[in-house]
């Protein structure tokens, strides 16, 4: 694709405040930040060197030099601050912050919320703060984070509600096992605060976040391997439509990565037989088992 003169002009305009506020940066780092090659950056800088304010004497020109791969910008003229966020850009930032707010632990949410309001006030006050909202599927997201923690070998930071003591604590845990029971999903994990293996009820985890600390490996740890499930269903099934980004179509079947068994089991139940899990056997069997158990509730005399 040929870059237009205008697109390049914007890069040049953006380069000045970037160099001004990042003194001593290397050409390589500048190129990475602007997503172009080093030789393109050198050409850009050669051109910038000729730009300036009317008059165009050395006093009015942008002054910069490259020495040993290091860029120094001595005089930015009036391009010392980056371009302001447009209304659309600011609205996109608000969307991203709203999503972030959902994902962070309770204790950090307030900051993001305040920041979101600040973006509304400063850049897009014609679109009220409450016009943008982001609500994720809490249960599904939690299961996904737990799976990510196992597959990446990273610890989780959880906000845990102990229902018997009704107290809320923040803990760092290293997941060893996910135990789906008929009435609840349990997470077995090494808990740093307790210095031992503890079992947590997923429903009582108010927030779950991956943190950049390697999991503590315990002897009982069995890494769960992510496998694919094979599903059969019509194209216009609700589950198929809602998850179509994660599905891979193979003739008349659909393949999906299993991050956590229980989510797929429950989804199959909710579809009431319109979605068939062909394999793996353990999921298929669990769907049949839970459906059978549920039926008993209806056959018992009241």
């Amino acid at each position, binding site marked *: 694709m040929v870059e237009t003169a*205008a697109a390049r002009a914007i890069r*040049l305009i*953006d380069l000045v*405040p*970037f160099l001004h*506020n990042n003194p001593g940066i290397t050409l390589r780092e500048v190129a990475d930040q602007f997503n172009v090659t080093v030789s393109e950056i050198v050409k850009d800088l050669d*051109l*910038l060197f*000729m*730009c300036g304010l*009317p*008059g165009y004497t050395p006093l009015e020109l942008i002054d910069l030099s490259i020495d040993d791969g290091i860029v120094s910008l001595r005089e930015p003229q*009036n*391009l010392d*601050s*980056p371009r*302001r*966020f*447009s209304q*659309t*850009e600011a609205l*996109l*930032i608000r*969307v*991203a912050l709203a*999503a*972030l707010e959902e*994902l962070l632990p309770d204790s950090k949410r307030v*900051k993001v919320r305040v920041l979101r309001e600040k973006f509304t006030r400063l850049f897009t006050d*014609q*679109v*009220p703060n409450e*016009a943008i909202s982001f*609500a*994720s*599927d809490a*249960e*599904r997201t939690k299961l*996904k984070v737990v799976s*990510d923690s196992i597959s*990446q070998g*990273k610890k989780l930071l959880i906000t845990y509600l102990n*229902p018997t003591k009704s107290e809320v604590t923040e803990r760092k845990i290293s997941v060893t096992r996910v135990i789906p029971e008929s*009435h609840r999903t349990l997470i077995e994990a090494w808990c740093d605060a307790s210095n031992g293996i503890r079992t947590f009820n997923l429903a009582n985890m108010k927030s779950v976040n*991956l943190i*950049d*600390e390697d999991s503590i490996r315990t002897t009982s740890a069995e890494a769960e391997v992510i496998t694919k499930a094979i599903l059969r269903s019509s194209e216009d099934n*609700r589950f198929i*439509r809602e998850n179509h*980004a994660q599905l891979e179509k193979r003739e008349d079947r659909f393949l999906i990565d299993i991050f956590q068994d229980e989510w797929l089991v*429950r989804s199959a*139940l*909710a579809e009431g*037989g319109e979605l068939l899990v062909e394999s793996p056997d353990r999921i298929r069997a669990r*769907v*049949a088992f839970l*459906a*059978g*158990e549920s039926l008993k*509730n209806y056959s018992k005399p009241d």
Partner: protein
Amino acid sequence: MRLMSSAKTERLVNLTMALLGTKRYMTKSEIFRRVSGYSGSGETKERMFERDKDDLRTLGIEIEVASHDPLFEDEVGYRIRPELFQLREKFDSEELGLVSLALGLIADSEFVDTTYSLNRRINSLAVSPLTPEEFRLSEINVVENGLSELLEALSERKTVTFSYQKEGASKSENRRVNSLGLSAWRGSWYLVGEDLDRDDVRVFKLSRISSRIETSSSSNSYVIPADFSIKDYLVMLKPGEYSVKVRVRRALALNLRNMPGSITQLDDDWDLLHIDFKDQEQALREILWLGPDAVVEEPAELRSAVVARLEKLVRNHG
């Protein structure tokens, strides 16, 4: 000899700097005389300038036009307001870090170029972003097709048109909508807006929009009420009309317990919930999801629908 495109790039940068640096409006003749890069006949220069001006505007740079001399209204002048061009609002390191972190959630999408550009500009401030290092966010799908067009339309209050296939409808219909807000709910995006042909505020699910979203050219064509809250319009957050009595195991089925309705304790194991679903379809899904932990008591038709589905599940998974 430098390439033509380099000369144009250089001229665009010089024009931006000149218009940004001027306190008063610069007339065209002043621009041609003082800004480097304008040459040729008067007509050539005029054409050059008109194209440059359009290019800068396309890039989002606002150029103000005004006549600075009431006696010579024909001689208009141009300038770029520094406060609209430059980021002068103050942010601390922590705030910038949170913005970078948030942008990371949407970087892997159609917004890739925008997030690059925004991150670059955040890194061009005197204050450096401080990212809360301890967090690795799980990857969730934040964006969906159509979001980009709708955000632009919403931010500039432009009317949008698209064809929409209503749930259960066999074909799509054209809609003209003044967008009021956007909300993600359980992995899908919803637009709330004033449907101009139906003269009513409606909710649209983005995945049901079956055409390109066309945006009108005029901005600020309507006003969003300052007290507008999208949550007031999302049906899934409002009580439904399908009344159900369902028995659930104690301390379980939080989803159902959080719905508006009443809860009665039956015995040590079971509670009876009296709740309203949107429709039978929703009731079926939510109750089946809970497996043996929820039992429908009323209405009878829902009870038999649940049983029929459970039997089918046992048949095809057994």
